[in-house]
């Protein structure tokens, strides 16, 4: 499978025009200038395939599913043809020692040049014993693989921020890639799972320009995570008008009104779902009638309940009643003291005489 990507694609029945069209759309999504589409296509068509090592840690394989099941005939999938995916447990034919050997080999041959993709969080408790591959802990493998890589792509919320394994009370001591690796460029592609085109967009950028795209303060590509779901949501006008669905089966829900009151986390969630949508642009959670869970934000699992509106208390009031009782008690106690003091003052009143007017 060596040679320019375009030939590989041609063999799979993807025409040059289809590829150009795809690159134009990809550039548009990544907020690159219109001319970048062609530059991208040219660069990628002729690109040398970089070695990619994909390490799965404490994960559910949802991220891999998302990428590999992206819409037919999988242009996104085709992008993977332009990389040399030297290690991906789920996809590779090799197993056991063979697989491990393949990884070791790729790392050695492409030292300092390979791209490392990680999905899943890394458990640290009990010396990382919660998740091991071939007898070695994830943290160990990560440190070794990271040492020789050019850059790391943290795929999904687990690798980016710890994700569900890190959810309170975090029994395995799960952490993100960036918690462990500090000296390599890391791009986070959070989401549970992430949107496939974001993944391919980042790969395309890396292949075209030899660098990672511009990142925000949470290490996410700005082009996809720059706006919140709420900002781009087609139901946003209903929010502005104050029209809300109050249950999942009321008139408001049928009318397609805003799901804020049903706990939609769109306003605090940065992702591209509202514009890119899912399943080849078919739909996305809000369009299907369910609020955003906020899956691409750090610690979304502990964000105070999926069905609780953002402006509602995250927990039920715990000590309001007790505080009221204590306050009333304090007030009554002070009032008793005050009344006693005042009565005492009145009782000890000395009738004023003229002499008292002098200083």
């Amino acid at each position, binding site marked *: 499978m060596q040679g320019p990507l375009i030939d590989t694609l041609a063999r799979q029945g993807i025409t040059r025009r289809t590829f150009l069209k795809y690159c134009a759309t990809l550039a548009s999504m990544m907020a690159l200038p219109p001319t970048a589409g062609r530059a991208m296509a040219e660069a990628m068509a002729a690109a040398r395939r970089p070695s990619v090592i994909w390490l799965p840690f404490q994960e559910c394989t949802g991220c891999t599913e998302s990428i590999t099941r992206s819409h037919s005939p999988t242009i996104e999938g085709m992008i993977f043809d332009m990389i040399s995916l030297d290690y991906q447990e789920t996809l590779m034919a090799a197993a056991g020692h063979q697989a491990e050997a393949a990884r070791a080999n790729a790392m050695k041959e492409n030292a300092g040049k390979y791209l490392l993709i990680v999905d899943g969080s890394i458990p640290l408790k009990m010396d990382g014993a919660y998740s091991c591959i071939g007898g070695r802990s994830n943290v160990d493998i990560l440190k070794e693989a990271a040492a020789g890589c050019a850059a790391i792509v943290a795929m999904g919320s687990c690798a980016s921020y710890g994700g569900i394994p890190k959810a309170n009370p975090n029994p395995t001591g799960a952490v993100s890639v960036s918690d462990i690796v500090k000296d390599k460029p890391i791009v986070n592609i959070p989401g549970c799972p992430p949107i496939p085109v974001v993944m391919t967009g980042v790969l395309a950028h890396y292949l075209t320009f030899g660098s990672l795209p511009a990142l925000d303060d949470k290490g996410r590509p700005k082009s996809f995570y720059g706006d919140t779901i709420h900002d781009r949501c087609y139901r946003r006008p209903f929010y502005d008008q104050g029209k809300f669905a109050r249950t999942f089966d009321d008139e408001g829900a049928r009318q397609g009104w805003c799901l804020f009151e049903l706990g939609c986390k769109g306003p605090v969630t940065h992702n591209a779902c509202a514009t890119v949508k899912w399943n080849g642009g078919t739909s996305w959670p809000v369009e299907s009638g369910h609020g955003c869970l906020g899956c691409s934000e750090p610690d979304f699992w502990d964000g105070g309940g999926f069905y609780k509106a953002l402006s509602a208390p995250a927990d039920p*009031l715990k000590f309001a009643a007790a505080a009221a009782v204590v306050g*009333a008690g*304090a007030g009554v106690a002070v009032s008793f003291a005050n009344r006693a003091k005042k009565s005492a003052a009145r009782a000890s009143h000395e009738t004023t005489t003229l002499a008292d007017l002098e200083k």
Partner: protein
Amino acid sequence: MTDLQFLTWVRGPGLNIAIGIFLLGVLWRLIEIYTLGRRKDLAAPRHAAGASGFHTVFRRSLPLPGMLKRSPVSYIGGYIFHAGLAIIVFLGAPHILLIKNLVGLSWPALPSQFIGLAAVVTMAAMVVVLADRINKPVKRFLSTFEDWFTWAVTFLPVLTGWMATQHLLLPYTQMLALHILSAEILLVVLPFSKLLHGFTLFGSRWYNGKVNAHKGVPV
């Protein structure tokens, strides 16, 4: 602490603590104040139309003839920012939802653009009122640390709320968390500062009206 953790804290434990202190403080202070008692007025009362504590509670919301001209900024600025705060707090959709979650009552909201406008107008009025406090000799003379502090504590929730919805300066999540935190600070400060006037003003007006109504003077 991540943004979302911060937001979740202010929505959870932070809110719990703030509402707890608020309830504790308000009850304590109100009981402390109103149980101090008052002597019965033994003089034979004079009755006059429009003279009662109840009347004064409402009548005192309007300036006395001539006063508007003497201190237009206090009155107009004061009306605008009090009305603005009321509109934002009681007619903003997320706020109504919060109230609904806390006490179960709910009513229709105003469009968010209108609330945004109200916030801008409110902030403008508050800035003008602050400038007036700095400029006017009497206000400056009376002002203590508490006056500046409570101004800031009242201003910040409006500012952060508005900045959050307009996506200014900080990401929405951080700004929203700061907004909620600043509102919580306001709740905590309220019972122990002059902001308690939101409650005691009714008592004060009523007492004033009542004492003078006994003499047949509608005040």
